[in-house]
């Protein structure tokens, strides 16, 4: 905690747009953040706020040709990812950056054994002989604490429970010891007690391997349990970035505060939940000013006209709101 760790990933003004018949769909509208070694960085927001598209942009896995990164810079360990050729990018995916998706039933191939699927990534990236691949697969299964890995690697996904399947997905992601892991809602499909297991497991793996994790979620409970720092997204923009405890205790952006207040809490009894009126704006037709202005309780004239700049109000805590600019 005393010395700052190396920055693994730096994202500057990333803009991703989908070009559709209905018009330009600005899914990610210029966001910047960084992730350090051994750190878990949360991207939090509601559906369609651009958090998954951000994850896919980092891997350059957008559905082309509709989806394109139209601006910005992504640097992984000093390498500009957007300048890599397609072939070079394949070397990065799965080896230096890997991803865990939400639903393990759809992200695993039902007709291959677990061992084959973990082995695929090991074989591709490490060029190992077949007999050595199996050892690597077993060690990847061990890392995720899957019991009896020698037997499990011959199982098909349908023979495993949801929690075990998600561990297999984790094994594939961690098999080449990546520098950065993007976890897109990895616990959403899991039950509460299994979710707690999975999060504890990932904290442990991070300690062992120093992997940087980007944790994409909509669940503030999960954020509190695993993330060191958090960025809150709204309609394609990051509205606030801060350490997890700052976000919960001293958040400055009206959207962050409203979102936290609207989550029912287990440790107190609420009679009425705070709710944010209205809906997020359409990304096809964004308001000219602050994107949250139409729903904001503290809205001012300037909010409707101009986009608020990102202001750093204390170390590591930045907010994009006109209220803080004054």
């Amino acid at each position, binding site marked *: 905690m005393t010395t700052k760790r190396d920055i693994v990933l730096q994202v500057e003004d990333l803009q991703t747009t989908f070009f559709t018949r209905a018009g330009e769909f600005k899914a990610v509208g210029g966001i910047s953040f960084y992730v350090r070694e051994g750190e878990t960085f949360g991207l939090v927001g*509601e*559906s369609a706020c651009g958090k998954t598209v951000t994850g896919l942009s980092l891997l350059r896995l957008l559905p082309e040709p509709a989806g394109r990164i139209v601006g910005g810079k992504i640097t992984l360990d000093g390498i500009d990812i957007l300048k890599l050729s397609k072939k070079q990018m394949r070397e990065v995916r799965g080896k230096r950056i890997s991803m865990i998706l939400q639903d393990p039933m759809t992200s695993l191939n039902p007709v291959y054994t677990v061992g084959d699927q973990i082995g695929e990534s090991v074989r591709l990236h490490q060029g190992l002989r077949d007999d050595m691949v199996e050892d690597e697969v077993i060690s990847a299964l061990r890392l995720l604490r899957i019991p009896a890995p020698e037997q499990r690697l011959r199982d098909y996904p349908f023979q495993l*429970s*949801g*929690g*075990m399947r998600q561990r297999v997905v984790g094994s594939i992601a961690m098999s080449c010891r990546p520098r950065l892991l993007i976890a897109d809602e990895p616990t959403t499909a899991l*039950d*509460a*007690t*299994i*979710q*707690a*297991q999975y999060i*504890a497991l990932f904290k442990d793996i991070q300690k062992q391997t120093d992997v940087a994790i980007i944790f994409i979620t*909509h*669940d*503030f*409970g999960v954020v*509190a*349990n695993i993330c*060191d720092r958090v960025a809150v997204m709204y309609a394609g923009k990051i509205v606030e970035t801060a350490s*997890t*405890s700052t976000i*919960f*205790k001293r958040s400055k952006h009206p959207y962050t505060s*409203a*979102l936290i207040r*609207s*989550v*029912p*809490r*287990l*440790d107190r*009894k*609420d009679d*009425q*939940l*705070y*709710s*944010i*009126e209205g*809906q997020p704006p359409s990304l096809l037709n964004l308001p000219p000013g602050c994107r949250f202005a139409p729903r904001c309780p503290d809205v001012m004239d300037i909010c409707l006209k101009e986009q608020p700049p990102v202001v750093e109000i204390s170390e590591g805590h930045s907010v994009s709101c006109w209220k803080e600019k004054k």
Partner: protein
Amino acid sequence: MADILLEGRELTKYYPVTKGLLQRVIGYVRAVDGISFTIEHGKTLSLVGESGAGKTTAAKAVLLLERLTSGTILFEGKDVYKFSKSQLKTQYRPRVQSVQQNPWSSMNPRMRVRDIIAEPLVVNTKKTKEEIRSRVLELLDQVGLSPDQADYYPHEFSGGQRQRIAVARALALNPSLVVLDEPVSALDVSIRAQIMNLLKDLQEQYNLSYLVIAHNLATVRFMSHSVAIMYLGQIVEYGEAEALFLKPLHPYTRALISASILTLPEDEDQNVQKIILSGEMPSPLNPPPGCRFHTRCSEAIDICSKVPPEVRTIGTQQVKCHLYDDPGVQSASSK
């Protein structure tokens, strides 16, 4: 006890598992295994548990979409299984309605909202077109939608609005009980709060009873008057919601609460250590002997793996756990 609307007694549902050409029965999945509960007028009972706990099967049984293996359901004191077909159609089904989890699949995409909400009225009542029309507009207003949205199709609405339409449809016949199967889990956080507030307001306004099926404990605490925690087809703890959340008795309830409570990293040392259960829920095809939770329980003692625990009443709570067999042990274990 006059205000009990619905009572489930020893509800049991076994699904046969067959094998081979002759479809020989090789075993039974004990989805629901002897659960009892009561729902009072104007109150909410929540069935909470992880997937495979049997909560949806229990809800289906109440909706009579699934015939029980054994057990009785009493609606206003009358045995529902003794109702004739016409009695069911006039006295039970219109009064027990449901809202499903996923508002994207619970509505016919080819019907206009007006017709979706009107359907229960068309099927169950002899109202004229004009009466139905005005009732639909009234319902739209009650759930916070505007009358000019009546001619839209479901795809033109957001998830939260669709769930409002589903609520309007469930309320069309003025039911006494609404079964809410994970009513907000498919919705976004900021929208969830809107729908939960709406459901609570409607409950007060119309003295509705709710049977909520949920896995999110925080949602449950906000909505419920009483709570039943289910594990592998059985209710392990049952009681008044506030008491249960303030002083959970069963080790499984404690683990569930610990898993869902919000703790910030720096609070972790001061607060109670998170309880993380090992292993997963065993198969309901072959539940473990004794207490069904003993394979994952950190407080299991010898007797737990041998003898199924009896239901004990402690305060307003009922708990199925050997730790409470002897009053002396109780104070030691629940610090």
